[in-house]
């Protein structure tokens, strides 16, 4: 059973740049998928399309049997959570308020004008904070936290939403190796324990190999590899990371040898 279904999606930006050139794939419910590819391959655009932060120029995105369009956007977003590279938290609010913003999709605007939530929302927020190990930081302001802690707040916010899908756009790109390991472990555990579908964009090939069920390789807006981590051979990596402007392949090989 597939949760996410992407059908011949293309994305052209107003400046004429074609970020996605006809992508079609299905992502199975409860799976852990990593998307790899060089910068500018269209990984972020693809992920943002799945959350409706971008709309496709052609083709369609279907999540859980419902096609993503303007009318269904808010409802869809309530079941698709997103974790960002730069965390995208509201730094001036407390940790727990940021987590509570994950509940906004389920609440009307009336209470929001007065910053009011329900008690059960607070219970959910506390529970997800405990899940990411930040119970003691609940009332701190977000800008007082380290990068790794902020990303865990981001994950708690995503979980508070009770989503079916979590999209993570380079969630560890701003973090040190130890924090990266923690965050990836957390996402994997969420996938395994809660059965939430996780899709992660990554630049770290070794993390992709260790955590993913399935790896999708992208280059220049197309899918160039799709398979399990054990099929990621050296030649596959060269296909994923090749660039037109690299004349000799030495630098590519050298870079990938340690990846």
């Amino acid at each position, binding site marked *: 059973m597939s949760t996410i279904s992407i059908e011949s999606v293309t994305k052209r930006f107003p400046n004429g740049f074609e970020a996605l050139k006809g992508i079609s794939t299905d992502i199975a419910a409860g799976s852990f998928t990593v998307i790899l590819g060089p910068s500018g391959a269209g990984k972020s655009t693809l992920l943002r399309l799945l959350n409706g932060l971008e709309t496709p120029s052609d083709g369609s995105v279907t999540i859980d049997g419902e096609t993503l369009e303007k009318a269904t956007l808010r409802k869809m977003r309530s079941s698709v959570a997103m974790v960002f590279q730069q965390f995208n938290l509201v730094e001036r609010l407390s940790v727990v308020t940021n987590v509570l*913003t*994950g509940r906004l999709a389920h609440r009307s605007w009336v209470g929001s004008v007065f910053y009011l939530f329900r008690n059960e929302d607070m219970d959910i927020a506390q529970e997800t904070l405990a899940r990411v190990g930040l119970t003691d930081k609940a009332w701190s302001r977000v800008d007082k936290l380290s990068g790794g802690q902020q990303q865990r707040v981001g994950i708690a916010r995503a979980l508070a939403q009770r989503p079916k899908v979590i999209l993570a756009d380079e969630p560890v790109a701003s973090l040190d190796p130890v924090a990266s390991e923690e965050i990836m472990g957390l996402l994997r555990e969420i996938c395994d324990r809660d059965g939430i579908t996780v899709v992660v964009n990554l630049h770290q090939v070794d993390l992709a190999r260790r955590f993913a069920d399935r790896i999708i390789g992208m280059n220049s807006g197309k899918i160039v590899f799709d398979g399990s981590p054990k099929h990621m051979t050296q030649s596959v990596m060269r296909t994923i990371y090749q660039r037109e402007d690299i004349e000799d392949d030495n630098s590519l090989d050298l870079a990938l040898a340690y990846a």
Partner: protein
Amino acid sequence: MTIVSILRWPTPNGLPSPPLVASLCAVLTTMWLTAPLVEVDFVRLLGSLGKMAAFAGQLFVEPDWAYLPQLLVKMLETIEMTFLATMIAVVVSLPLGLLAARNATPHVLVYRLTRDLLSLMRALPELVWALVFVSAVGLGPLPGVMALAFVTIGFMGKFFAEAIEVIDHKPVEGVRAHGAGWLQVRMFAMLPQALPDFVGTVMYILDHNLRAATILGLVGAGGIGYDLVMSMRLFQYDRLLLIALAIYLVVTLLDRLSDLLRSRIIHGARA
């Protein structure tokens, strides 16, 4: 070791840039040519130094202590007018500011209309609005409060809109991506980011409004202004001294308060 170091400007040829020199010359020439038109006459200014000293000398009198109770009442009225007008303006300018910010407005037409409305409100100074409201609702502090609130809405709506326009877009996207609605995104992602700037503006406006409120009495719109003008006209320097000191004291206290509040908002409460 060089004894004389040659001075130069940080330009390729070491000379000041021609456009800068040209505009400086233009400004100075304009000032020199226009000064007589507005009767700025340095000889006369020097000549009146004696009169100024005499006036200042008259302020060294024993304050009229009997006037103190009335001063306190009038000062309190001025402060009340200031705070009330500013509070009304805060409440009204928050939604108007949202509508007038390019990145928060529901439609570009709403944005334009709100901007125009705000500039209309601050186009005339408080004193002129006070005249309008005095003829509309009669003498007393009420037209004063209305005039102050009116101009303040015009200013704060604009300041708030501009504070929203420079916020970081990433948190907005973060909150939006989790399915928050139109108003929720504005309440939870935009407002907290624009708030420190907004509070800073409110503090500045409060200070400005207090000074504006002291003069509204001139047209019968309440506050200390009436007493201030009357004591000037009747040469009651013993009262004038007290009034000036009281205004200075309140403005200074307000300044301290605003520094305190602002640093708390920006750096958070010290836990």
